[in-house]
């Protein structure tokens, strides 16, 4: 345990401007379909700020867990189109964290190349089963 806790733990007030930024981008997305992302890791946020933002945005209808080179969590906040994306790296540390304003975050789409690989794998399996059967 730390004897001295130097972690910045107080609310810095960054969330107020962050929320209005999100609102602006969401408005734009609703009108024009222009997606946007806000990188949370590069902002001078304290842990308390992060919790506070999470609470204020809330949870919506979608919650996804990904098992891709470590864990990732994605959820739609209580505001449709506003997604919270959290990637974990080694030692379960947060490696990247961002807000996406988009209909579906990119990483959830199956990539053409992955689909191609999957298709050939699947047909191979079927062939083999026929062979054995």
């Amino acid at each position, binding site marked *: 345990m730390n004897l001295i806790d130097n972690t910045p733990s107080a609310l810095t007030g960054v969330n107020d401007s962050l929320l209005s930024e999100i609102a602006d981008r969401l408005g734009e997305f609703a009108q024009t379909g222009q997606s946007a992302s806000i990188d949370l890791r590069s902002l001078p946020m304290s842990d308390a700020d992060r919790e506070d933002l999470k609470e204020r945005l809330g949870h919506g209808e979608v919650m996804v867990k990904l098992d891709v*080179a*470590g864990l990732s969590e994605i959820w739609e906040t209580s505001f449709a189109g506003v997604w919270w994306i959290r990637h974990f*790296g*080694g030692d379960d540390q*947060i490696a990247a964290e961002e807000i996406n304003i988009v209909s579906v975050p990119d990483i959830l789409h199956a990539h053409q190349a*992955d689909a191609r690989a999957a298709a050939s794998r699947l047909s191979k399996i079927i062939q083999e089963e026929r062979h054995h059967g």
Partner: protein
Amino acid sequence: MAEPKTLGQMLEARGISRRAFLKYTSYLASSMALGSVAAKAMAENLASARRQSVIWLSFQECTGCTESFTRSVSPTLEELIFDFISLDYHHTLQAASGEAAEEARHIAMRENKGKYVVVVDGSIPTKLDGAYSTIAGISNLQMLEETVKDAAAVIAVGTCAAYGGIPAAAPNPTGAVGVDQLVTDKAIINIPGCPPIPEAMTGTISYILSFGKLPELDHLKRPIAYFGDNIHDRCYRRPFYERGLFAKSFDDEGARKGWCLYEVGCKGPITYNACATLKWNGGISFPIQSGHGCLGCSEPNFWDKGGFYKPLPAPIRDIGKVAAGAAVAGAAAGVVSAAVGRAKKKSAMKEGKS
């Protein structure tokens, strides 16, 4: 060996999906403040890139930089870099040794002529023709010259390779210098730090791989994405600095309250690095957060700036003795000019009398 396959195809065979690419590049793009559009482009480019041949030369160093580079233990996101590059020579990490190791270096140089990247950690001693440090019977100086000749680019990782670092600290007995003082006709990127932040190394290499060009560099050849920020400007203790609240020692009230470390020698105001934003060990903490001032390790000459605990406004040379000497000399000069004045007056008075 030249890889015929793209990284995408290669990793696909191992069950690593494009999602992993995207996650990896999201993480790097965030560390470089590039945004998610760039992350997507990076992922696509990376998937269609070939595996990059890397020759890693370790000279006068402590292996701290390699440690930092290979820091994570479990197979994770951060380790994907080792799938993207082919570390064809690294005398600390490779299994082969002696002749076989040198052979591997020569093969890689031949087969990837003009395309391989040379990573250097450690400074290069230049005195006595480089005799202070040799590997397999040849001096670091020679090995650098020989290996860099057909390289596409050179990345100097760590302050030693970038500027000479600790081996070059006064009086620099081995005549240690950094890579860019010796190599003048190649693209060089410096990723200083003692050690450098792992993301700065992997991020820069991945950037080159996916965009096929060097990232934007500052006047000290450092990638701006990682070295564009001043520690002091990004430091969470800054409000204390502005209010004049300073820790006076490492165990006083101020230190306990997390006040600014300027008075105990913090070099944050003259240091450019990503410590205050990316932090260390996957974002856990960084020196200032742990209660110690910044040493300025990503700056040239950080070892010789008058001491780690000497505050920035303090002169770095001894003033007391020189000032005392000057005072004595000044007093002597004063007495002399007064005596000259008296003599002049006397003779003037005599003249006036006669």
